[in-house]
């Protein structure tokens, strides 16, 4: 009974936090892209456009839900449902942090730990292709069909280097459970170098990390591999015929996939919730320092306002950040939330890289995309796997 109650509470918290994160990722992405392009980005709804996601949700829900004629109704309605479900399910095996203790209960910061957790994520994400492919086919539109075809070909091709890149750190971890993979990466070499898979011997997994990240960009259909929805050729690609909440589900699925892939890269290569340097060197002070710095910056700009609204909004945020920093100094809170902070920090940085690259790189041509996957990425991943296998066998 206790187990059920705790599980339901955990599932509710994870679902709430995840959905809020998805909505605000959109805001963050628009802000990041805007600042890269030297413009302010969303600014009208709420202070610094912070209520923009809420406005977007209201807009999308109240929009007219168009069902075009000549579509295959069953597949057309199932496609957005399928892609958003498959995108959200995989978060259930991601470990966000270490053990969590509160009110005398102890639980893991993870919904469930499967002993084949990694394969589960691969299986679910490979099923996600159907959402895109079906949407393209069922829309009965040549742009949508081309987008769906491109996407399925691209996802099949990039799944191979991605799986091979995942296999290399698995050889060192010797398990498929995501929690155990993270636990294996604890500890420090020479007292300061973290034993994450990208630093750890016998074969530092730096190459497979980059191969994984590149393949992940293609799997999530992000720039520079966003051929399935290339605006200048395909209008909007596979979701051109979708409107209202059905369109929003594809959007949500894309962001949820980004979150999953970033979390997976964090777990496999960047040591999950393990801090960058030991507590003895003061890693426990990083979170309070960052929050305090953010609070001070907010207060500084509140006292020297560039815009009229800043005088009212920024003190609120500054105070919140300072309070968060102070709370993270409390030992019992720090013990529970410090792993979460490190996990969120690493995954958040990878998400930022996604946006940064979107603001920087142009789109590939389709033949370049395919030859890159098969002629460079796949052999490189294979070579890396072979080297890792040899070194692991040699050391043991």
């Amino acid at each position, binding site marked *: 009974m206790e187990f059920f109650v705790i599980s339901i509470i955990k599932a509710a918290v994870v679902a709430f936090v995840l959905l809020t994160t998805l909505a605000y990722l959109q805001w963050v992405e628009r802000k990041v892209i805007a600042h890269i392009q030297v413009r302010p980005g969303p600014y009208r709804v709420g202070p610094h456009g912070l209520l923009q996601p809420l406005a977007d949700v209201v807009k999308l829900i109240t929009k007219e839900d168009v069902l075009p004629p000549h579509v*295959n109704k069953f*597949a057309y309605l199932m496609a957005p449902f399928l892609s958003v479900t498959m995108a959200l399910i995989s978060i259930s095996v991601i470990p966000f942090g270490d053990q969590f203790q509160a009110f005398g209960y102890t639980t893991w910061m993870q919904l469930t730990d*499967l*002993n*084949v957790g990694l*394969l*589960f994520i*691969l*299986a*679910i994400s*490979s*099923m996600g*292709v*159907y959402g895109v*492919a*079906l949407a*393209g*086919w069922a829309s009965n539109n040549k742009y949508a*069909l081309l987008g*769906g*075809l491109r996407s*399925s*070909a691209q*996802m*099949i091709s990039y*799944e191979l280097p991605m799986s091979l890149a995942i296999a290399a750190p698995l050889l060192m971890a010797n398990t*498929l459970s995501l929690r155990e993979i993270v636990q294996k990466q604890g500890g420090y070499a020479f007292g300061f170098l973290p034993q994450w898979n990208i630093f750890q011997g016998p074969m530092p997994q730096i190459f497979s990390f980059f191969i994984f990240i590149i393949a992940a960009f293609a799997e999530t259909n992000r720039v520079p591999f966003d051929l399935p929805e290339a605006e200048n050729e395909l209008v909007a690609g596979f979701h051109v015929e979708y409107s209202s909440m059905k369109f929003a589900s594809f959007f949500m699925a894309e962001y949820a996939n980004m979150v999953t892939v970033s979390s997976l890269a964090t777990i496999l290569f960047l040591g999950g919730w393990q801090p960058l340097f030991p507590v003895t060197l003061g890693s426990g002070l990083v979170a309070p320092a960052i929050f305090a710095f953010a609070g001070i910056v907010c207060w500084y700009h509140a006292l020297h306002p560039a815009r009229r609204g800043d005088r009212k909004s920024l003190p609120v945020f500054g105070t919140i950040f300072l309070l968060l920093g102070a709370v993270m100094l409390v030992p019992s809170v720090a013990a529970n939330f410090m792993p979460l902070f490190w996990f969120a920090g690493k995954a958040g940085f990878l998400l930022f890289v996604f946006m940064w690259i979107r603001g920087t790189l142009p789109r590939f041509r389709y033949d370049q995309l395919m030859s890159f996957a098969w002629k460079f990425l796949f052999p490189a991943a294979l070579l890396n796997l072979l080297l890792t296998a040899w070194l692991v066998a040699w050391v043991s």
Partner: protein
Amino acid sequence: MDVILFLVFATIAVVCAISVVVQTHPIASALSLVGVMASLAVLYLLLGAEFIAMAQVVVYAGAIMVLFVFVIMLLNAGAESKSGRSLVASWLGIPLIIVFLGLMSFFAQRWLPFADPVRFGAFKGGSPRDIGRALFTQYLLPFEVVSVLILIAILGAIVLARKELD
């Protein structure tokens, strides 16, 4: 709980399997086949063979069936028209199936009278470690032969595709 899940997913598997044959549109058939694969994976999970279940989804539902759907979409195959059925098939089809199933169950009972009934979660040796060890020690030769066979098939496909281009 296990029995309920088994009944639900076994029913889904059978219904999807019938739907593969009955549907006239190739995409609908392919999607039904995906349904069969996915519910079979759940049945493997109920047995306690997690690795096989995941491999089933990754390989069959995730890779092979995606290729099927991809090819069907690429060729843009429309719905098939129903041909007039032959009299023999429509009169003898169902009785023959029943006879066949009856014979199968009869021989199964006859030849394997002492076989243990299947128990949920009782499957041992299904962990990735066990399967890997078995593949690379006990079944090494069949494993390698199969991989060479697949390589030959790939080479054959390339040769055929090349010929068409010239």
